């Protein structure tokens, strides 16, 4: 079968669409299971609703960044492949680099028109590159998470310190990563300033919550910090460029 290839062929939309529907279904099923279990564990319906709303609000700005990633890649790769890769398993930073690297290894670039074979080579590379983590989760998730909860059961207090240490390491690594290029000026300095503004706003939110008793801020503090500090990147860039 050799049909006329197009990066936006309807068949490709169907393939991507089916996968996206499957992932949406999994999210809904897991959401229902966890919600039911949370009620059994004594969380109130109201608290869970607040959690869901604040998680949704939290996700909008990062989701827009992902949407922009799809649009960026769609110029060359069409819509279906970036749609699939960024909705299932992928992440913006990986997929953009993977597509770019694969294209340049083929002696083409993401700014030229791809042949069917070039397109399929890029699709294979992106797919195989990203799926390692996936193999490990079903194999090791039970062992790893049981191990961690055993630490907690043996010594509750140390269990808390143990997971907190993991959180600190994660946050420290991302903060460090955000500040790595600070001395180079330009975009590196803008990222550092964005991080600083977000941190200061969080301090301010904490003060407002404690001094004025604005409890609702608890749920929306991070989205507020995120959106304002992202917006601040615009004048910072204009100023430093």
């Amino acid at each position, binding site marked *: 079968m050799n049909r006329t290839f197009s990066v936006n062929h309807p068949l490709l939309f169907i393939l991507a669409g*089916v996968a996206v529907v499957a992932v*949406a279904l*999994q*999210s*809904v*099923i*897991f959401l229902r299971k966890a919600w039911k279990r949370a009620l059994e564990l004594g*969380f109130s319906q109201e*608290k869970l609703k607040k959690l*869901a709303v604040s*998680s949704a609000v*939290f996700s909008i700005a*990062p989701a*827009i*960044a992902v*949407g*922009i990633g*799809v*649009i960026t890649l769609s110029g060359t790769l069409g819509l279906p*492949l970036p*749609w699939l890769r960024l*909705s299932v*398993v992928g*992440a913006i930073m990986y997929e953009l680099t993977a597509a770019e690297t*694969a*294209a340049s*290894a*083929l002696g083409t670039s993401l700014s030229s028109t791809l042949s*069917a074979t070039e397109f*399929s*080579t890029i*699709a294979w*590379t992106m797919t*195989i590159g990203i*799926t390692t*983590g*996936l193999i490990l*989760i079903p194999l090791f998730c039970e062992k*790893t*998470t049981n191990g961690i909860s055993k630490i907690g059961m043996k010594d509750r207090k140390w*269990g808390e310190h143990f997971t907190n240490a993991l*959180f*600190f*390491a*994660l*946050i*420290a690594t*991302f*903060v*460090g990563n*955000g500040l790595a290029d600070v001395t180079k000026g330009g975009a590196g300095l803008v*990222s550092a300033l964005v991080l*600083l503004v977000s*941190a200061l*706003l*969080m301090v301010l939110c904490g003060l407002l919550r404690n001094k004025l008793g604005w409890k609702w801020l608890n749920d929306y503090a*991070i989205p507020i910090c*995120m959106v304002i500090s992202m917006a601040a*990147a615009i004048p910072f*860039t204009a100023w430093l460029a």
Partner: protein
Amino acid sequence: MSEYTRGIHRSGRLWFVFAYFFIYLFPVVTSIVFDAWPSWSQFFAAAIGVVPLYWAVGIVEAFSYMPMLGPGGSYLAFVTGNMSNMKVPVALNAIESAGVQQNTEEGDVISTISIAVSSLVTLVVIIIFIVLMVPLTPVFSSETLQPAFANVVPALFGGLMVAFLSRTPKVSVPVIVITVALFIAVPALKGVYPIVLPVVAAAAIAYSRFLYKKGRI
């Protein structure tokens, strides 16, 4: 292990098989229908630049994130993707504002709910982008807005850092200060941060253990 957790492991594994199937269906069907199987030489040329690094990152991410996200959160987050720029921060934020501990079932249900909601929001936003691509493209790809969306990760982690600092500052402050100093001293680490993460985690756990044994935290 509770019946709930057992069930999550069971269905989590099953969904992974589905996810794998659908992910690979795309390149397989594309290659068959358009008669476009890559030649081995082309495939190796493209894969060599991507696969080894991504596998290393994938392995490290899997083991770093599983303990933080819990079983339900992990199965869902790894399938839906966008971990560090969305799923991990959203789960951390939910755990922090609900005041639960991650290594408990309470922590896991909270992390699962936040990740599920976040995935659904992302799927909807992406579909909106695709449908409204023509009017939206000039707005979001404008030079003016570009810096805002290039800085999602620092914007997220600045606030999260402050939220988490107050949990045992004796550990969090030195861990963050030393790690940041390390990144500024060796900016090349920026590209390989997922590999730095387990090293920092091991050091943070060791230091925490030391203070705990001494009775200082």
